[in-house]
């Protein structure tokens, strides 16, 4: 008799910074989990690259946010800073092509969280799984320093 291990996706941190719970994001839609379960990171300031948190297809690429859909099903959204849609791409450089196949750790966007803060916005990054009924299982405690591409949370699929 064979048993299939429960499938899960390990989601890596797209940025380096301090890990937070998604409920800490200063945006009620993210904080209340309306987009999905996940985690948040307060990134360190300075010019840097945000990377893909999972393997998959870069389904949506905006200057300040991107969505990668896994072959296993779930899509993981990375949102760089809060209300950054209103920056209309200023300070963000897209390094990847929409619809391309990416692996976890692929560089997606170059940006500077310090610049986002200079515009009066929070640079906190939300990493959330879309359309997912399961909770995100943290792989790092809240308040801990996390490196780019270090495991952030895992989620059943």
């Amino acid at each position, binding site marked *: 008799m064979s048993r299939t291990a429960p499938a899960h996706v390990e989601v890596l941190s797209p940025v380096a910074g301090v890990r937070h719970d998604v409920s800490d994001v200063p945006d009620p*839609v993210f904080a209340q989990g*309306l*987009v999905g379960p996940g985690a948040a990171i307060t990134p360190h300031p300075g010019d840097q690259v945000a990377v893909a948190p999972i393997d998959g297809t870069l*389904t949506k690429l905006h200057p300040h*946010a991107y*969505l990668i859909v896994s072959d296993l099903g779930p899509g993981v959204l990375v949102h760089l800073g809060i209300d950054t849609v209103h920056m209309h791409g200023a300070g963000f450089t897209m390094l990847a092509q929409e619809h391309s196949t990416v692996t976890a750790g692929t560089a997606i966007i170059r940006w500077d969280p310090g610049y986002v803060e200079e515009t009066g916005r929070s640079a906190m990054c939300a990493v959330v799984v879309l359309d997912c009924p399961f909770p995100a299982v943290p792989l790092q405690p809240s308040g801990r320093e996390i490196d780019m591409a270090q495991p952030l949370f895992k989620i059943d699929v």
Partner: protein
Amino acid sequence: MSRAEQILAGLGGSTNIVEIEACITRLRTALQDMSLVDEPTLKGAGAHGIMRAGSVLQVVVGPEADTIASEIEDLL
């Protein structure tokens, strides 16, 4: 009725829309009259969540938000 038409109906119709824009998973719309919002219709159109803040309503619709926003703009 298309998804955009259903969402527009749930937002109180084209005359109720002051402005609509999309972020990556959500519609942000400034409305004339928040009381005309029909949440069951929005949920029926696949909205995962609805957030009111003053005269701005945010509707979480998923990654098709930009397509839906442009379809709604075409209906206005």
